[in-house]
């Protein structure tokens, strides 16, 4: 039964959240210690490259949590979450670009290199303000949030759901990718934004900054996770599940289903934006390929593999798949797409509830051996 607590602090009472936070904290501490305390060359030393890699995984994990929030609990399969991720990334990239100042190749005091190269003589209006960190960080939330708000408002109001929604979210991110490829957009076209120097005055190439970004990603993941937990653990979370399983019924109970969908969709988009903003300084580049439909659908795979509607499953899935990707592309790059494609098939056919659901699924199978219908707690898409 639900404990009557303040909604934001409620997750702390949940066993799964406590465990998740403990594991995350332990992992972050361990990596930090192994990186800082052990000398280079020590077999257990974690080098800066690896710290950076882990930081990247954590920002991906936050993105996966955002997707799980809408897909797992609300039943909206967004194939366009990469767009929100990329928008957050571009907002951060614009800030980092402005931080370069006159240290660019062309040494222009204000214009980024690519604009000088295109013979532009002034910053476009939408670049204004991105030299200020607070403004840029606000935009990390607002830009994806605004897109999600407009898109979601239109879609949910017209009750576009299910497969249709998936297809148009995919079209959305595809259209954005094409748009960002254009030099005229003023976002660096094909090459995107890169050659960043520092963030908030810290040199991006120093090991300390990398460790700092890793820790920031971990903290952001923890906070994002807590926020999502708080939402799904509240009555609103139960309304989400109700919407997912029987939208019309929920409507007849008097809930404004489209507003619930819009609210959760926007929150999710903002989380994705934060993930993108943390990702960009760690990889040092943002370009239109983050908008590609392939990336967006890959995020969904992370969640599916980890286990939908669990949140921690999304984190597990994101880290597992990306770790596998790092290993595979290093050892045999050609095999990676085979492995990825195979994962898609295997997970959906044999592991519909993902790694997280594997155990629970087995237990229930044993209890009800002759029933193949999806049962109560099983997620139906």
């Amino acid at each position, binding site marked *: 039964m639900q404990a009557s607590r303040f909604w934001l602090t409620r997750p702390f009472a949940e066993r799964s959240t406590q465990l998740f936070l403990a594991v995350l904290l332990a992992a972050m501490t361990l990596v930090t210690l192994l990186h800082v305390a052990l000398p280079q060359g020590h077999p257990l030393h974690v080098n800066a490259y690896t710290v950076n890699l882990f930081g990247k995984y954590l920002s991906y994990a936050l993105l996966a949590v955002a997707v799980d929030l809408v897909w797992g609990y609300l039943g909206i399969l967004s194939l366009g979450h990469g767009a929100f991720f990329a928008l957050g990334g571009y907002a951060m990239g614009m800030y980092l670009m402005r931080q370069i100042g006159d240290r660019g190749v062309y040494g222009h005091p204000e214009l980024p290199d690519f604009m000088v190269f295109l013979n532009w003589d002034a910053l476009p209006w939408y670049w204004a303000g991105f030299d200020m960190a607070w403004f840029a960080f606000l935009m990390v939330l607002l830009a994806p949030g605004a897109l999600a708000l407009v898109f979601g408002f239109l879609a949910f109001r017209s009750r576009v759901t299910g497969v249709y929604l998936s297809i148009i979210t995919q079209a959305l991110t595809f259209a954005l990718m094409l748009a960002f490829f254009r030099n005229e957009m003023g976002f660096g076209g094909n090459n995107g934004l890169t050659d960043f120097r520092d963030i908030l005055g810290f040199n991006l190439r120093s090991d300390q900054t990398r460790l700092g970004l890793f820790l920031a990603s971990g903290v952001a993941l923890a906070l994002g996770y807590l926020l999502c937990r708080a939402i799904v653990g*509240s009555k609103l979370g139960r309304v989400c599940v109700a919407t997912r399983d029987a939208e019309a019924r929920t409507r007849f109970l008097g809930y404004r289903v489209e507003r619930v969908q819009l609210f959760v969709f926007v929150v999710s988009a903002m989380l994705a934006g934060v993930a993108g903003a943390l990702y960009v300084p760690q990889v040092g580049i943002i370009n239109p390929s983050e908008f590609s439909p392939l990336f967006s659908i890959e995020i969904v795979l992370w969640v599916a593999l980890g286990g939908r509607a669990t949140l921690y499953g999304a984190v597990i899935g994101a880290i597992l798949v990306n770790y596998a990707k790092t290993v595979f592309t290093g050892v045999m790059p050609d095999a990676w797409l085979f492995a990825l494609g195979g994962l898609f098939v295997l997970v959906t056919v044999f592991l519909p509830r993902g790694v997280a659901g594997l155990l629970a699924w087995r237990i229930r199978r044993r209890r009800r051996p002759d029933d193949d219908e999806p049962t109560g707690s099983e997620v139906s898409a």
Partner: protein
Amino acid sequence: MSLLRSLADRDRVFDFLVPATSPVDVRHGPILYLEDVTVSFDGFKAINRLNLTIDDGELRCIIGPNGAGKTTMMDIITGKTRPDSGQVWFGSRHDLLAMNEPEIASLGIGRKFQKPTVFEALSVFENLELAMAADKRILPTLTARMSGEIRDRIEEVLVTIGLAELRARPAGILSHGQKQWLEIGMLLMQRPRLLLVDEPVAGMTEQEMARTAELLTGLAGKQSVVVVEHDMGFVRSIARQVTVLHQGSVLAEGTMDQVASDPRVVEVYLGAEDEEPA
């Protein structure tokens, strides 16, 4: 944090304020009033100039052969389907055609579907919690807290529908009959003025049917109840007023005995009683 809490506390008040005052104006008698309603799908008139009046506190049974337009009528009242022409009034103040589904629901019209639809992934208790009359906007829902009073109300309904033992189990594991009762329980949580119940006993055993009849007759008086049903035995056991629909309009109206002796009704419907599935 304590400041936030006090804010959240204030929200609690709204949960109870909203449902308690029903704005429905029934001084003129009828709680539901349909006039000249017509709706067609691809040229086929599912409802054809239908007129129907339901009084406050009445228990009305609506019968009719398949395709008579019973479910479509429910769809129109709850805002799911828009009629091509006609008027639908709730009390004498609310024009239902000008409202959408959640608005109609929050006005106090509850509906039970033909096929029981409960939220299978949620527990029985949570199903009732969601159905409860409350402020259903987003932020109040997000910050909603379980008070003793709410818990008592849910427990009360759990007992009424006989599912107290199963309160923590997911609704998906309930039997067909139990799901039907849970759905009626959810309607009760809404404290509706008007209950629309679509084939409540389809697929039920004799005992379950008797229990359902008991439930529905217990509701009448406090709430107005409209029951659409095929099963004649069941209708006879609960009905005071019966309306017969045929080809989208009213064929006959009156007590069960009056209706049963109407030759037109016998011709289109009662004559085929034996063939109706129980």
